[in-house]
């Protein structure tokens, strides 16, 4: 072979360089060896060697969410590739641009049950934005260009490449390309003026408007425009779980998170508004609750880059197809200040009447730990979370003040996401502190990445809200299933401090409320690699407010109900 002709693997790595990729999160295997071999010649791409492929996907996802740039995963065929499926689903549900390069058996052996063969293209069809099974090395320059284009534009999402070893090993004579050939792919930009005019007209009639800000606003960087819109209209703002950070939660018009565990005042505002304007949100079932009771009389306006979201859950009165930032910027000059003084006052009254609160007595409370963490981290740090009670408490008590400062698995609700996502976020944003708020359950699903964090010396702060329970399921069993606890007791948990030390990771423990501030400060100041804080909180505590799954907002529980509750009708 002529040495000047690069092979497929070399072209893939060169494409990554051309796209500005800094990190590849990977784990090798037989079918991926040519790709790992090509990495040796290009040290400008740093390989982050993970301990499990799922961790690689969450790291790439965390990197992507923190920076807005695509995260790249490199794994081998068969089990290496199937281990990425959870991470791909997580990225797909939350519109995160990750690119998953999977080695594959040589193409003549496809479909013949070769060693470590899995039909990973087939397995992942339902959870990718797009995928390519590459059959010839000469397709690679175009496929790589299209992969990055598809993953990062429009509504972002995961793209998977299935790369047979003979393709990555054989010479590629095709040149790099700068254009794509995708006749079925359109990227919405500014919404049509007719839809904006209709939106402006609806707004002009509103006296009790609410802006509901979702992840699309974060992705589009629409926060500044939305803040201007809220101020100009004098309209209160609520966010979804993933919309946190687009508009600073310190803003006077911000009412916090809406939905199942949203603030009571945000939910009251949505219940009583005469107009709700969803900006880059897909009306998730944990927001809407009982469909028939969700803002039945309010005008519903919806701005989204994905027109398939219009009418999927909620039938809007006004649909605007486009990028959240460009849409709001185009709408801004078309609206006037509204007469909302009464309404803003009312929302403020609800805020005073139903503040977020928790019992300060009776042991160490998760909310106390998170409130103190927020005091240290607010305005500076990126917070990632896992999934469960700690996630909801963090969403309530950590006030996200800047874009891309809140990273959480929303749609998929993937336990094990928070810690590896924090590693990715830290690599992408080395100048910002990164806190991973995790539970004792979820952390154990991906804790093997302690080795990765230690090796990379990423100064991630892992804050374990440790109640020795799968707390959210336990909460449901307590409230709705007569205290019949089943499969929630985390008996057998390790000593997390000793565990961290076994990986050479600095660790702290918090047992008493009096220790919280001092220990968290110590952890915040520790920057010589990762550290872990095991906060041993009270075992049985519940997240309130809570709108039971499938119920309407009027059935919101502000505190623990005295009477027995019926089983929820909603799915989750």
């Amino acid at each position, binding site marked *: 072979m002529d040495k000047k002709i690069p092979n497929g693997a070399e072209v893939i790595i060169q494409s990554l360089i051309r796209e500005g990729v800094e990190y590849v999160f990977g784990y090798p295997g037989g079918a991926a060896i040519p790709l790992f071999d090509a990495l040796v010649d290009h040290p400008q791409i740093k390989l982050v060697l993970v301990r499990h492929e799922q961790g690689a996907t969450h790291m790439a996802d965390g990197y992507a969410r923190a920076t807005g740039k695509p995260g790249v995963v490199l794994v081998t065929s068969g089990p290496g590739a199937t281990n990425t499926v959870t991470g791909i689903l997580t990225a797909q549900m939350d519109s995160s641009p990750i690119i998953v390069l999977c080695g594959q058996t040589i193409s003549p052996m496809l479909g013949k049950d070769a060693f470590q063969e899995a039909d990973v293209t087939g397995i992942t*069809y339902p959870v990718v934005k797009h995928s390519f099974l590459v059959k010839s090395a000469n397709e690679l320059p175009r496929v790589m260009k299209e992969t990055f284009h598809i993953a990062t534009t429009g509504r972002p999402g995961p793209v998977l490449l299935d790369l047979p070893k003979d393709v990555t090993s054989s010479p590629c004579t095709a040149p790099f390309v700068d254009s794509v050939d995708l006749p*079925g792919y359109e990227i919405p930009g500014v919404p049509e003026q007719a839809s904006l005019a209709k939106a402006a007209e609806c707004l002009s009639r509103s006296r009790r408007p609410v802006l509901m800000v979702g992840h699309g606003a974060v992705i589009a960087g629409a926060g500044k425009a939305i803040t201007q819109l809220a101020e100009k209209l004098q309209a209160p703002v609520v966010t979804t779980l993933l919309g946190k950070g687009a508009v600073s939660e310190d803003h006077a018009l911000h009412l916090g998170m809406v939905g199942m565990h949203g603030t009571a005042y945000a939910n009251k505002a949505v219940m009583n508004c005469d107009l709700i304007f969803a900006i880059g949100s897909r009306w998730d079932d944990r927001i809407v609750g009982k469909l028939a009771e969700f803002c039945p009389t309010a005008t519903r306006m919806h701005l989204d880059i994905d027109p398939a979201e219009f*009418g999927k859950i909620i039938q809007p009165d006004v649909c605007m197809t486009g990028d959240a930032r460009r849409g709001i910027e185009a709408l801004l000059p078309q609206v006037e200040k509204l007469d909302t003084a009464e309404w803003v006052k009312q929302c403020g009254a609800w805020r005073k009447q139903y503040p977020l609160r928790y019992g300060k007595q009776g042991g160490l409370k998760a909310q106390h730990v998170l409130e103190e963490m927020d005091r240290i981290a607010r305005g500076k740090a990126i917070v990632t979370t896992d999934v469960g009670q700690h996630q909801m408490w963090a969403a309530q008590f950590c006030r996200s003040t800047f874009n891309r400062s809140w990273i959480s698995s929303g749609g998929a609700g993937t336990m094990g996401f928070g810690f590896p996502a924090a590693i990715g976020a830290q690599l992408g944003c080395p100048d910002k502190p990164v806190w991973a708020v995790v539970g004792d359950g979820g952390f154990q699903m991906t804790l093997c990445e302690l080795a990765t964090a230690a090796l990379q010396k990423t100064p991630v702060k892992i804050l374990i809200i440790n109640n020795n329970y799968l707390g959210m399921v336990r909460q449901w069993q307590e409230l709705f299933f007569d205290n019949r606890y089943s499969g929630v007791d985390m008996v057998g948990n390790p000593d997390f401090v000793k565990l961290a030390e076994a990986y050479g990771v600095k660790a702290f423990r918090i047992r008493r409320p009096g220790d919280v501030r001092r220990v968290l400060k110590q952890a915040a100041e520790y920057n010589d690699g990762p550290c872990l804080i095991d906060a041993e909180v009270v075992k049985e505590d519940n997240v309130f407010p809570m709108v039971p799954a499938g119920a309407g907002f009027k059935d919101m529980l502000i505190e623990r109900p005295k009477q027995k509750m019926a089983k929820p009708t909603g799915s989750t």
Partner: protein
Amino acid sequence: MNMPSHTISVLVRNKPGVLVRVALVFARRGYNIDSLVVSPVLDSEFSRMTITCTGDPSTLDQIIKQLFKLIDVVRAIDHTGQSVIEKEIALIKVRCPAESRTGILQIAEHFRGTTVDFGHESLILQIAGGSDKIDHVLGLLQPFGIVDLVRTGKILMARGADKT
């Protein structure tokens, strides 16, 4: 429960896997595909899928949008209720003892069918036309004993300037 029938045409890139991606959109939402015809269009880079399906109409709008979201789908149009030309071909194998041959052939002639195979025990009729016409012929042939049936599935084309 009786669900209405819809006909959708989908213009796709001629790429491996595109059929699976399209089928998954239907399957996940509980839509039953009754017939599916895939064939190349003039430009060999693209293919046309003509899909007849039954299901809840409110879900159909979502299915069309989800189809359009697929990168390899160029357009997806629901032709239900639109003025279109619809055709289908059926091959029908009918039992044909001497005493029933005349009756069978009269039906074939009336519906402009052709006899494409003639044996001692059975013959094969080819019938082309709208799907309802074929359904009707099948009803008429039923008493003679239908041995086997193959239908191509419906194809359609929009009239005039309308796109298919």
